[in-house]
């Protein structure tokens, strides 16, 4: 028996979408408002999905407190109230939410989560969301 549990977290951060490989005009053309030199910010909602069998004695697939503490330590403490462009993770990549999704998936895949990581989903705004998981995409 396999159950999937998804937990939703919030972090806020600023960023500017700008590629060093493009001219200023091309950056403006590509990223539009997101290329504003002063940056802008978002409330990012991160959904982390883990899976596992239900332990008969607890009725749970994992200790939620451990999941929360791990995500806080590995992700939220690193990104919350930060300027993403200034972080080492985005030294050479543009902090689009695509790249942020890949970055956080990699971080969590190496972290000691209390259940199997199935995938993540990030809402940049209420209209844009991004997902990383081969298995999750196949199931839809």
């Amino acid at each position, binding site marked *: *028996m*396999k*159950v*999937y*549990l*998804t*937990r*939703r*977290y919030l972090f806020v951060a600023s960023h500017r979408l700008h590629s060093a490989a493009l001219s200023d005009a091309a950056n403006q053309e590509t990223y539009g408002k997101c290329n504003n030199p002063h940056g802008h910010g978002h409330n990012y909602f991160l959904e982390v*999905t883990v899976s596992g069998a*239900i332990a008969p*004695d*607890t*009725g*749970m*697939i994992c*200790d*939620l*407190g451990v999941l929360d503490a791990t995500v806080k330590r590995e992700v939220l403490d690193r990104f919350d109230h930060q300027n993403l462009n200034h972080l080492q993770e985005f030294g050479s990549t543009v902090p689009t939410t695509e790249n942020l999704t890949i970055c956080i998936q990699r971080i969590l895949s190496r972290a000691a989560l209390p259940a199997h990581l199935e995938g993540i989903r990030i809402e940049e705004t209420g209209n844009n969301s991004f997902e990383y998981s081969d298995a999750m995409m196949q*199931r839809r």
Partner: protein
Amino acid sequence: MIYLTRKAEFSASHYYHNPEWSPEENQRVFGKCANLNGHGHNYTLEVTVAGEVDAVTGFVIDLKLLRDILNRRVLDDFDHRHLNKEVAEFRSEVPTTENLAVAVWKRLDSQLHPARLHRVRLYEQPDLFVDYYGE
């Protein structure tokens, strides 16, 4: 294949307790949820069925039928109830969101002809939900 999702809400109380453990162990594992006076949630249930579109009706499943089954098999038993004390499955299981999702699956599976049950998604709160695919 078309997937159709119906949403429903129910409100219920519960607590987490394993009778084979000491009070201290229950408190350590379940924290605030171990309070034997119980607490409650507004649960949001999403039931997704899969099937082919009927050539005559254009339906995967008659929505009214789905609603009636959902009411009869799940909501009538769960809504405004104390899950530990009033729902059969939880006389022996801890009424976690995981176990609730599996219980809902078992109550609905094979009831939804000609569609088949694809997924049960149960939100305990907006920031926590469980998916079960019958795997």
